[in-house]
């Protein structure tokens, strides 16, 4: 059972990383408009290049 002395601190490290990512997202305005962010995955950003290569 003494493995938990190592595993729990590692888990805490992950939580700290998660909080870091969360703060980064807040600073990037990802939470100021929830409606937009939900749709952003639908759009293809490289469609233009796509069309050109097809031509």
């Amino acid at each position, binding site marked *: 059972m003494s493995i938990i002395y190592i595993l729990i601190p590692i888990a805490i490290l992950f939580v700290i990383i998660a909080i870091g990512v969360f703060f980064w997202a807040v600073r990037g305005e990802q939470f100021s*408009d929830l409606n937009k962010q939900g749709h952003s995955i639908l759009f293809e950003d490289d469609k233009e290049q796509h069309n050109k290569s097809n031509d």
Partner: protein
Amino acid sequence: MSNNCFHCLESVPVGFTATVKIDGRPEPMCCIGCQTVAETIVAQGMTDYYKFRTVRAGKVEQLVPEQLKLVESYDNPDIQEEFISQTNDVSEVLLTVEGITCAACAWLIEKQLLNMPAVKRVDVNTSTNRAMIQWHKDALPLSEIIKSLLEIGYNAYPFQADLEASQKQQTAKAYIRRLGVAGLMTMQVMMFAFAMYFGMFSGMEENFEQYFRWISLVLASPVILYSALPFLTNAINGLKAKQLNMDLPVSLAIFGAYGASCYATIMAVGEVYFESICMFTFLLLLGKYLEFRARLKASEFTANLQKLLPLTARTLNVQGNEHIIAAKKLKLDDRVLIKPGETIPADGIVCAGATTVDESMMTGEHQPVDKYVEHQVFAGTVNHDGVIEIRINKVGQNTLLNQIIKLQHSALATRPKLVEITDKVAQWFVACLLIFASITAIGWYQIDPEHAFWITISVLVATCPCALSLAIPTALTCAVATLTRKGILIKQAHVLETLPQLTRVAFDKTGTLTQGRFTLDAVDILDNAYSKADILSLAAQLESYSEHPIATAFSEFTPQQRSLSNIKVQPGLGITGEDQKYHYAIGKSGWFDTKKTNAQATFYVDKQPIAHFYFVDEVKQNATELVASLKSQGLSCHMLTGDASNAGQKIAKKLNLDSFITGCLPQDKQQHVDNWSKQGEIVAMVGDGVNDSPVFNSAHLSIAMETGADISKNTADVVLLNSDLAAISHLLTVSKNTRRIIKQNLTISLIYNGSILPLAAMGLVAPWMAVIGMSASSIIVISNSLRLLKL
């Protein structure tokens, strides 16, 4: 092929056959505007927009060269310094973009702007309709950015965030960060707490238990020291102001229990309460954040307003050449040219030309005022039909508009305020809590000194007013959400508490009790050769070319086929036109003759008067019902109007108002409301004009109409989005229900706290019981509040 425009989904007019090839299929377009926009979207490879949009696009209006000139004036550095901020070589601007309807719009705008290499970053917010843009100013002028938005059909103009709005944004972000930390950490702490609960029943090795306590301490510390910090600062601020607020018992519980738990961990004695206080912090923050967000949305909606004054002015130099300069650079005695439809940039005297000016935003009256040479015109009013040249005689703070705004700010400082119910409850709760905690401590010290400290801490945790603190914010959040759905925006927290206590409601007349626009009341036909229908049809054709407010009264009579040509608008007089046989004119009475009548407009054929028109500003549909229902609830209704004519008296009689006062200046309105509050009345003011904004800050509660001036909407506590008076009675009903729910919530939470208190004082409450009791009481309170959503 369908008959609707692919871009804006409006029907395609007969004879317009343009199509645009979108994803390989020709799609119909309804106008050149939509066609250009759609072509741009296709050319940029952004057709995903059409695939994923959820709301149709607005019809695209073609820009006139005048507007393009205005866009270019945004490049003037004097004008730019008001809304552009610069860090190193990157400029940042906030644009209000009209026509953003869904997430697809945001994507389209971001994509379009990021195509330009000079643009660094774009962030579009679909709920506020604003776009934040960072770019290199030297490489790309701002006007190019705005023009590229016009290419895809969005009209944009710079938005100047006021200090209050940007502070609110900061607060919102801080809330989210605190909430995130509290949420993530509480989950971890609860996990270890459960391990310890099981350990308590089935036994756990001593060293593991101590290890888990240390881990909980580490994980709970950010929640308490970061997320819960605002409670402590609020409580201390309250104490400094000699007030006991709700944050005081909250911080006592959180920080008291945290301190004791830390001590217990380090010294390996007693109980730890990390999970209770983390959970408590998270729930409370959540309740407070939701309430804050509901109000933030309302204020964001109204803050998105055009400025009262134009940014630019057109000055004339000695040779008579036009220059466009920043309006704030205007000096006394400058000569300024004002074209039809433009807003006057500063107070001045007309020195050439004649026109009518819409002063409704200052006076609330929609009847345009004639202006000739030597007349005074005011900043912020709108020039209607003539070109005038004015000599500036007042600038900056001295203009009438700024005087009114100053009046409004000074009233804010002395605004009457009712004691909020939360603070009342908090005061005696804190008192009881402190007394009870000290009795427990002293009592147990006599019996068992070793346990006295731990039992006192468990009293503090058990009586932690979690449900009590959630009782009010959750009820308010639900009520505000219900009202927002009905088109009633609540901007201030005190509104729902003030409403049920009102004793008096004062109304503005024009635009509030009345429609604020003219409708045809009577037609007096002088020559029987013409039928009423003929006269109205001819008059309506002429009036359709006019910007004058009276013209809207004729809009319903405008015929499909137009027979008149050579239409001329004569500023200050009326409109003329002709067909093959006759010359027609509609305009002010006595235009071609000298006969005095009190008609508001006369129709002429070959300069002979044929018919007189009389107009009225009709009372709104629901006004009578509203006044009756307010009176039946024991409120007295009054009218304060700037209009000095007898129209006020007529309406007061028709609506059966308790009193009316006409001819009020903004400060007179304030005076009357101040007098009423001095007599102990709780007053609500309902209005719409700039002239109402000072009195809004004198009344206990202020309600503005959506159709009103922007400044009054910004000042008001409540904005009625559909300008429907019936909303006021709805508002009253919801506020009364909210009050009832709040009372129930307070009772529930006090019963919980009251019943657990003796148990805790006897030392019977273990940490896990405290968590269950607290969460259960909070959930009951929240569910009770949710009932308000169904109203």
